[in-house]
């Protein structure tokens, strides 16, 4: 029987409490609309798939799950946007303005980058991950990561220059 993530499963709860906060912030920086929900979903998937065994590189695996979850949601959201009007109510206009003003200039510029560039930059400059770990989290080659970071930084630098 699947007992679920009950308090009697300390390893899973410990794992959750240890990593969930960081992963929510990661999802937020990656642009998830609902970072907590994305991380909850990732942990639910993790629980079902790995209830009996844990992957070797646990942290890397969790990073990858969240990156994939956010990516999937964004893709789905884009598709949905193409097909129909928004079902989800957008925040009031004044709230949107307040949010934008609180965001720093480069972080705001980050939103305009291609999703993969954004992922690479967040994993590199926020999580401070080595390039190999970024490649694993994004499931791309090392060279691709270097290229994404290099081009992403260049684009951000350009945007800063344009802004000055």
């Amino acid at each position: 029987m699947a007992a679920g993530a009950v308090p009697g499963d300390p390893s899973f709860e410990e794992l959750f409490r240890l990593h969930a906060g960081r992963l929510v912030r990661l999802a937020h920086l990656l642009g998830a609309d609902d970072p907590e929900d994305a991380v909850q979903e990732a942990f639910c998937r993790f629980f079902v798939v790995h209830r009996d065994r844990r992957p070797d590189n646990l942290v890397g695996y969790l990073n990858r799950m969240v990156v994939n979850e956010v990516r999937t949601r964004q893709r789905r959201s884009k598709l949905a946007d193409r097909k129909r009007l928004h079902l989800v109510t957008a925040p009031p206009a004044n709230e949107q303005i307040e949010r934008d003003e609180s965001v720093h200039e480069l972080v705001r510029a980050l939103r305009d980058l291609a999703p993969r560039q954004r992922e690479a930059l967040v994993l590199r400059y926020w999580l401070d991950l080595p390039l190999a770990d970024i490649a694993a989290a994004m499931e791309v080659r090392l060279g691709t990561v270097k290229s994404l970071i290099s081009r992403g930084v260049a684009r951000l630098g350009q945007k800063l220059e344009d802004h000055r």
Partner: protein
Amino acid sequence: MNETETRLADELKQEADTVQVDLDRMWSVVQEQTRTSPAVHRTARPWRRRLAPYVAAASVAAVVVTVAVVDNHDRGPSTATQTSPTPTPAKKKPTKAPSGPVDQPVDDWACAYRTVIQPRRSLQTYELVPAFVDPREVPDEAKDYAVPRYHFTLNGKTGVLDYGDAAGRRISRTKLTKSGDRWRVGDRTLCSGADGRPSPDPVALGKYTAKPRPFNTKADTVKQAPPTGTPVLVDDRTYFDGTGLLRQTTLYAYPAKGGYAFARVPDSNSVWVIPDNRLGGDSAQVNSSSSGPTNPFGEHAFSLDLIVSYLTGDRDVTGLRITSDSGQPQGPAQKLAFGGKTLYTVVARSKIDGDTLVTVLRKSGNEAPRRY
């Protein structure tokens, strides 16, 4: 780091620090979702992948499966087999059921509809996992699934492995490629419902195709959440497993402590208690065989369509509505009397992740749709 990089790192840190995380609330949600309704979090590909880790001992599975096969053949061919567009040989009277897979040539296809599947993929990398067979031996998979007949046809560096039903008709054909002194398993064409669906009659929720299998109070899963009232028959149908064999599965819902649960016959390996007034469901994990390296198609257990359910005594609720973002047709809905309450069920046929929307309909105003 140059100026841009330094500044980006600082801003990312500041931005991340603004995020407040309610870990207790999140943990409650995770607990609830993993305990009460894991099915509704399962999505197309992961959902199928999760069917893999079945733990039924192979010997037990073989017994269960053998019973299913004998029973299926007693009931005659399915709708699919009756409408075969290709001429099939006159139905041979099944002889005495063999005790295990026998190596004999198989005849033409037993079914009208077929689909093509690939060997299982790694859960980590999603790469195809190499699987091999030895033509000098009975395939382990054939033994595990109690396939009545198998036959290798080899030609140089390529070959095929045919599986046949008890009447000798082909139920699947698997491509083989020689790799050293072994034969690597490739794509498999096997019997299916129309459009490659697992069931010959995938929308027959509540319309029984045969005599349903009786509810088994002694099943291991049922013992884990014992019934506190009378079980209700929700569904009964035939489906094709990963070898192409036709099987039967019956689904019951029954009241249990804390809510209600679904139980499949033959037994599935898990049960979850779903509270009232909450969307839950049965993910139709009906494969009774294990899916180790000997079963390269074990993950193609052909889960039936997801059944989403809602039990309530609230008269404000009038039903469930199921729709699809992609415009794909969804399955039927039904309403069942359930110990003074009402159990609503709908069938999600779309296999696209997040494509299905289920709405609880209320007289006072419908609830927000939930996405599956």
